[in-house]
């Protein structure tokens, strides 16, 4: 009961922060800029913590520990350290320029910049459709995660449909009323919670287990678990492929749009320096705890998982697919950190964990707002809505879009199996990584053209569908599909641009 109370208290705090705490009586900029971009006036700490929080999803706390539980220390190198280098690097080179172009030309979305930079209209709409289609699964996963987490934290007291509805309502409310400012402050609060949670959980669990050295020695002593402390089960090429995935971050519309919210470009300085340290502070405890959980063989729920993993490894190729899926579910380690806390932590900390999990699963707020911004700017305003009805109606349209999108996502979450959207999210990462050449070409290459951009957008759409529907598609030479997808994307941008007419010199000059 205490964890449930703490989680509902957390939801109430989030609602207060998002709607009331940082509301301005009068917009500091135009009404649309104020709602969608927080008036381009976020300060350095909110910019850093919110940008980081926007990138942290349920996967960070639960999924990373689960992945490490099954695969070992490789998880950190695959997902954390590669992001710690590539993401700040892209923020440094691309984010700062995006910010400057947004300031200079008044852009609020990446598609607005593409349309202006490449003197195109409908090609921008094609890019909008590809971006939006890749973003929607995240929003649905967020609602599903909310329902599942609330049901688990309350011990089934709150059913899935109600948990999903509560989380969707809370997110919708602060996005609706607070816009970017409310969302940014909620994300800041959530990041502080993440950062505190990792360290506390590590200390409490470490003490409870009788110290980590003993746990590691026990893992090393068993031939079954010793490989989890090395990367011998993974090929170096597979490991290398993962360095392409963080390219997706800067291409995600909610991140690109967030880059436009900084008051000054100097805000990026602190962000790029501290970003790798924030990743270290959150991922290292989660990955380490996930690996260490393998030593808790005397805890029945962990022992069951290890048994299922053994059965899966020994299963013949002819094993019934449903039985295999069932074994996979039993072996999955997404709940190992909650189990460890349940075992070793006091009740109040379990409640804190519940709030931390809620913070993670509520990461869909930025995506909802980004999609609303894109719809109102790239479709409503572009096709004459703003000129005809004015800026106030444009903002109200954005708010209405937030409501409709949340309701649709909730209805889909009630009916569709989560596995479909889990997969869709995985492919979306590759898709966005392969879209990154669009930003690079628009900001750095004068000779790039709209036809090159169209070729990239169509290729990414086709490649995502192909890899999602065909086993082993584009997995060349043991690399993950993201590598050929991104390289071909870049090659298409260059080759198609070189054989087509570039934009006018006046336009190019505005981007120098």
């Amino acid at each position, binding site marked *: 009961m205490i964890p449930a109370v703490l989680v509902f208290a957390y939801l109430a705090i989030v609602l207060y922060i998002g709607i009331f705490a940082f509301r301005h009586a009068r917009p500091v900029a135009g009404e649309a800029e104020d709602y969608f971009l927080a008036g381009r006036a976020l300060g350095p700490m909110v910019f850093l913590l919110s940008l980081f929080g926007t990138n942290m999803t349920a996967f960070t706390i639960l999924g990373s520990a689960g992945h490490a539980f099954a695969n070992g*220390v*490789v998880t*950190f*190198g695959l997902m*954390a*350290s*590669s992001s*710690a*280098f590539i993401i*700040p*690097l892209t923020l*440094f080179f691309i984010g*700062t*320029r995006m*910010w*400057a172009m947004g*300031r*200079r030309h008044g852009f609020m979305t990446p598609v607005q910049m593409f349309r202006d930079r490449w003197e195109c209209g409908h090609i921008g709409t094609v890019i909008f459709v590809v971006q939006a289609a890749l973003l929607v699964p995240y929003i649905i996963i967020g609602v599903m995660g909310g329902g599942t987490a609330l049901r688990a934290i309350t011990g089934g007291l709150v059913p899935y449909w109600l948990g999903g509805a509560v989380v969707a309502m809370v997110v919708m409310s602060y996005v609706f009323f607070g816009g970017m400012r409310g969302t940014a402050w909620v994300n800041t609060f959530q990041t502080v919670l993440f950062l505190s949670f990792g360290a506390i959980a590590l200390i409490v669990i470490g003490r409870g287990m009788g*110290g*980590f*050295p003993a*746990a*590691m020695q026990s893992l*090393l002593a068993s031939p079954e678990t*010793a490989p989890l*402390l*090395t*990367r*011998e089960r993974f090929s*170096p090429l597979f*490991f*290398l492929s993962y*360095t392409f995935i963080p390219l997706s971050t800067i291409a995600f519309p909610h991140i690109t749009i967030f880059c436009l919210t900084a008051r*000054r*470009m*100097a805000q*990026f*300085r602190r962000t*790029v*320096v*501290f*970003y*790798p*340290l924030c*990743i*270290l502070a959150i991922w*290292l405890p989660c*990955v*380490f705890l996930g*690996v260490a959980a393998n030593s808790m063989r005397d805890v029945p729920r962990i022992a069951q998982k290890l048994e299922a993993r053994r059965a899966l490894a020994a299963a013949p190729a002819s094993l019934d697919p449903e039985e295999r899926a069932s074994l996979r579910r039993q072996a999955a380690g997404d709940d190992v950190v909650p189990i460890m806390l349940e075992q070793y932590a006091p009740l109040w900390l379990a409640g804190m964990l519940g709030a931390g999990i809620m913070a993670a699963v509520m990461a869909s707020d930025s995506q909802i707002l980004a999609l609303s911004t894109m719809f109102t700017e790239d479709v409503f305003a572009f096709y004459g809505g703003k000129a005809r009805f004015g800026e106030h109606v444009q903002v109200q349209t954005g708010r209405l879009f937030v409501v409709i999108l949340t309701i649709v996502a909730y209805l889909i979450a009630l009916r569709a199996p989560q596995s479909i959207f889990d997969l869709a999210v995985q492919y979306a990462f590759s898709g966005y990584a392969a879209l990154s050449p669009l930003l690079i070409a628009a900001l*750095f290459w004068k000779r790039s053209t709209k036809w090159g951009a169209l070729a990239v957008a169509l290729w990414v759409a086709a490649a995502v569908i192909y890899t999602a529907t065909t086993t082993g598609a584009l997995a060349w030479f043991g690399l993950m599909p993201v590598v050929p997808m991104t390289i071909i994307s870049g090659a298409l941008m260059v080759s198609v641009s070189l054989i087509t007419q570039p934009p006018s010199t006046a336009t190019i000059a505005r981007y120098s």
Partner: protein
Amino acid sequence: MSIVAAKETEHLSPARTAAMTVVLLASILTLYALHQDFWFWRTARPLVFGFLPVALAYHAAYCIAASVLMWALTRLAWPSHLEEDPRR
């Protein structure tokens, strides 16, 4: 295109600016290559601080190295020219 454009390096001669660009680009490429630490691929030992497998400790240190490189980039290659709005 030179990536060195920070106000801190304005006083440098073109040759030194070019050299700085090469050093920074080489640092970026080196750090990228260092992610692929095949030398710790098949070993867990030594356990750093008595409990961190060496590969995990290496990648934790890698995050700190990334932070240091970002600090160097913001000091030596900060694109200050982008902060000035040409419309003003």
